[in-house]
């Protein structure tokens, strides 16, 4: 039984094509289609319902210590109003999930998790929380929309004074009022573009959506579905749980070492990551040079030698070409290496290229 987000009726009214995803009924696309929605975010702006994401609060005198214990990044010295990416590892060093951590005060944090992992994450957190930290899953009370694209700052500026809009990437401002609705605005996203993720109470979601749609109309803002969210994150080479990482892939193999602080005193999975040493397989980019599209779970070869498998792949609308990400043997991961993927029994040629595939232009 799939749940509806508070914006379900809005998606129907907007012409959304609804599919089940991570336990929720969400639009995979609207009438405009994935390509037009993808291009809107690269060139103008797009609006996404991401209310399915999970939100878990960490409060109390040991909240910081708990986060440093269960997450791979280091939150010591983090300033209030900042956002930090992290992985949560199991004892074997595999990824339980990847998360965003918001700091609201010395004893008050918010951890945003993937919808598909919400219950697993909460159980893992509850089993490892330190005395003096209270955790609470508030996901069902929180709606989230993402406004992404080069026009997003101008659209927000129509609705809010400058001091209410976070200016720096990975910062957030709480207690902002949009049309009287209490919101938290975060300068983050999953598209590789400028933009914001806005959190509010479920009861405000519909009005917030309509307010943003109206403000964005003159800038070409359109609603965007899960299809464009996936092609956008892939073009920007952002990892997706269950593809680039899972319980058997370490964050170091997934190329997420920037969010893993092995120098920290301890965290769950640290010993296993140190014992494993240099990763024997790594995440790389593949640019398709042959004819076809490489998608996930396709074997990657050099000649007859199996060197790994693809984790995600599609035709990227903005780049206008097919790309994929793959997990391959570290010995065969050099940029420029010619490889082939087995696409339903047919070999498709590709070349290892640096990540990300797309970097936004300076604005």
């Amino acid at each position, binding site marked *: 039984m799939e749940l509806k987000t508070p914006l379900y009726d809005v998606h129907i009214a907007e012409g959304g094509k609804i599919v089940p995803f991570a336990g929720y009924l969400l639009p995979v696309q609207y009438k405009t289609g*994935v*390509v037009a929605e993808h291009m809107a975010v690269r060139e103008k702006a797009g609006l996404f319902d991401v209310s399915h994401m999970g939100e878990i609060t960490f409060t109390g005198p040991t909240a910081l210590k708990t986060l440093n214990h269960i997450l791979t990044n280091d939150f010591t010295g983090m300033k209030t109003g900042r956002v930090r990416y992290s992985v949560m590892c199991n004892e074997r060093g595999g990824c339980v999930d990847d998360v965003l951590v918001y700091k609201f005060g010395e004893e008050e944090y918010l951890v945003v998790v993937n919808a598909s992992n919400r219950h697993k994450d909460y159980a893992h957190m509850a089993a490892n929380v330190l005395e003096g930290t209270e955790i609470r899953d508030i996901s069902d009370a929180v709606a989230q929309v993402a406004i992404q694209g080069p026009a997003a700052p101008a659209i927000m500026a129509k609705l809010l004074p400058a001091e209410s809009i976070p200016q720096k990437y990975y910062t957030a401002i709480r207690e902002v009022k949009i049309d009287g609705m209490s919101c938290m605005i975060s300068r983050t996203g999953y598209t590789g573009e400028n933009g914001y993720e806005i959190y509010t109470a479920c009861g405000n979601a519909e009005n917030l959506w309509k307010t943003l749609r109206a403000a964005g109309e003159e800038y070409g803002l359109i609603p965007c579905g899960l*299809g464009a969210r996936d*092609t956008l994150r892939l073009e920007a080479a952002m990892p997706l749980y269950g593809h680039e990482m899972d319980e058997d892939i370490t964050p170091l193999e997934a190329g997420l070492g920037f969010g893993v602080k092995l120098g920290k005193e301890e965290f769950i999975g640290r010993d296993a990551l140190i014992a494993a040493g240099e990763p024997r397989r790594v995440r790389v980019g593949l640019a398709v040079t042959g*004819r*076809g*599209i490489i998608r996930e779970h396709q074997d990657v070869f050099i000649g007859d030698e199996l060197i790994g498998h693809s984790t995600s792949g599609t035709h990227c*609308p903005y780049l206008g070409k097919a790309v994929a990400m793959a997990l391959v043997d570290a010995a065969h991961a050099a940029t420029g290496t010619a490889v082939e993927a087995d696409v339903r029994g047919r070999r498709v040629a590709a070349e290892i290229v640096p990540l990300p595939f797309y970097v936004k232009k300076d604005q």
Partner: protein
Amino acid sequence: MANIPADLKYTKSHEWVKEEDGLLVVGLTDFAATALGDIVFIRLPEAGEEVTAGESFAEVESVKAVSDVFSPATGKVAEVNEALNDAPEAVNEDPYGAWLIKIAGTEATDELLDASAYEAVCAAEEDA
């Protein structure tokens, strides 16, 4: 509702068929093209290849997924619409103009539907 021209024949798997100069011209219906979404790649057979009624002869990839295209008849590929190699989106834009292949020497054909029977197939799938 999808566009279903009355002068064509259809398969249950959403191919359209018409006879032209002794050949069977095959394409994807508007319903199929809309369901697939933006088409970005089509793998077509080569002229001279054998095709079999009810079996896949091409793959159509949209940004979302890959789908097989099934042959309405057994025969030999006489002609391939090579323009689709560079412009697969033509199938979205003009599904009844952007044919995929023409089949010669047709032996057996799959069960072909007229427009009203095909419309019922689409309606049933939309309700599913």
